[in-house]
């Protein structure tokens, strides 16, 4: 049975359709990536799953329990790691974890053991007695994760857990996520770091403007990207006329212009580079940077929407 089923869910804020007919399902021990640019509707989708928002239409079930009509049963299976750490800053890490454990039904020895275990998992045992206010940003994010997993949930929601985290904490977090999968926890992981999602996730859904625009395993999606490489050329100012000339060059599949950057999808970047470069120079433009990216979910997103996942 699926741990999570989301069926055709819609949610609007005023006239803005933040989530527009999203369906997805996740099974045990699976890391499920939710990828999309700012404002795509990732956090809103997660808020609907965790029962903070009510869908206008559609149904969501966790372990078979409806999150609206059987909320307490559904929430007992759910752990949430919000985008911003949600903790009591004046309390110690341990006091925070005891609180979140209690709120999820743990007590007495079970609670004490769960707190110890969660602290070990995120590597904060040594600092457990310190007030959270004194923690670094990365440590708060780790404690934020501990608070989400304290009751050993079947489904764990993680909203961009590695944003603004130092590399050491980041690796620790990614390793924690992998370990949780080993224990059979189903995880929804949102991010706009493409590499992270490619590395971590078993299946990925790409969202844009509230809609699912692509879904599948990482390798399926990379196939959809058509094994395209991305040739990124930064110039001092793009021109419409040169765009036509460039598009006509052999080996170039598609070109997107974003600010003063040409993003060229091609099956072989090195082959098309010399001609492309010449054409650009002949148009009187100056080139300030050239990058070649291997096929990625980023190029798939570019191909599908003509836009980039991350803000430039």
């Amino acid at each position, binding site marked *: 049975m699926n741990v999570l089923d989301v069926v055709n869910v819609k949610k609007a804020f005023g006239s803005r359709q933040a989530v527009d007919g999203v369906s997805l399902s996740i099974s045990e021990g699976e890391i499920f990536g939710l990828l999309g640019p700012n404002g795509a509707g990732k956090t809103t989708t997660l808020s609907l799953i965790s029962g903070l928002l009510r869908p206008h239409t559609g149904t969501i079930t966790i372990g078979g329990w409806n999150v609206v009509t059987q909320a307490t049963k559904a929430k007992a299976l759910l752990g949430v790691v919000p985008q911003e750490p949600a903790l009591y800053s004046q309390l110690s890490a341990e*006091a925070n974890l005891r609180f979140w454990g209690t709120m999820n039904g743990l007590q007495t020895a079970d609670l004490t053991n769960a707190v110890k275990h969660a602290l070990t998992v995120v590597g904060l045992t040594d600092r457990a007695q310190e007030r959270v206010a004194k923690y670094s940003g990365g440590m708060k994010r780790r404690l934020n994760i501990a608070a989400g997993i304290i009751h050993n949930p079947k489904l764990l929601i993680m909203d961009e857990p590695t944003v603004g985290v130092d590399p050491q904490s980041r690796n620790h977090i990614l390793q924690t996520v992998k370990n949780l999968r080993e224990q059979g926890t189903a995880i929804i992981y949102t991010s706009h770091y493409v590499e992270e999602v490619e590395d971590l996730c078993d299946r990925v859904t790409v969202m844009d403007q509230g809609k699912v625009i692509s879904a599948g395993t990482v390798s399926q999606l990379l196939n959809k990207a058509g094994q395209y490489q991305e040739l990124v050329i930064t110039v001092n100012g793009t021109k419409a006329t040169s765009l036509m000339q460039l598009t006509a060059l052999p080996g170039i599949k598609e070109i997107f212009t974003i600010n003063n950057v040409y993003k060229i999808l091609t099956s072989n970047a090195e082959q098309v580079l010399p001609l492309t470069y010449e054409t650009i120079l002949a148009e009187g433009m100056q080139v300030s940077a050239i990058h070649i990216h291997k096929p990625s979910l980023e190029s798939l997103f570019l191909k599908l929407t003509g836009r980039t996942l991350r803000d430039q």
Partner: protein
Amino acid sequence: MRKCFAIVSVGLRQMLADPMYLVFTLGLPLMMTWAMSFLPKEAGIYEMASLGVLVMFVALNLITSAGSILEERQNGTWQRILTSATSYWAIMAGYFIRLFLVAATQAAILLLSGKFLFGAPWNHGYLELVVVLAIYIFAMTGLGLFLAGLLKTQGQVQAVAMAIVMIGTMLGDVFFPIENPSGVIKIIAAISPQSWAAHALRDILTLGVSLSSLVVPLLWMTGLGMLLIIAGVLRIKIEA
């Protein structure tokens, strides 16, 4: 029940960690109560003044403490509580008890120190006192929850707290009797819970008024408190 208690305790610890909170809820009113003890001890005047302080600071405390709910909504702990396996009613009960307890403790400390440290001349009517205060705190807790549902930021809460406390207390005929009150003053005094509470408390302590003659205002305050709590709880739920 354990979850209710956890919400109460975690909130209290978070609030008490802020020294300014203690200054405003206990330091300042204690100083004022002490200063009032130099007023002439003639019947009514001292009671009015020191009970006025009590009533005013309890109101202030409750409204600003309710702002702590807004703070929790801003830093996400409120949402996280909502996503835990705890029923909405247990959560709201926790917040209600938290506010009520904070104000009741404050009132008890102020009254006891008034009597034993600053030599207030009270020696009867204790039961009546407790009942009136409990119902007053209940009504103001309702107001706090209602404002938490209605307002968006801590700044708004502070502005409203100032307005309600200043207008309700200063113009509500709480500190000093207003001779021949004009129309507006009469209306404010009639609807301000602070005014009700302060007058009821004074009458109990000076005239020895019994509860049975206070039934009408007490029912008013209870009704008002219930209405505000229901409105606040529903409003907060919709917000969520």
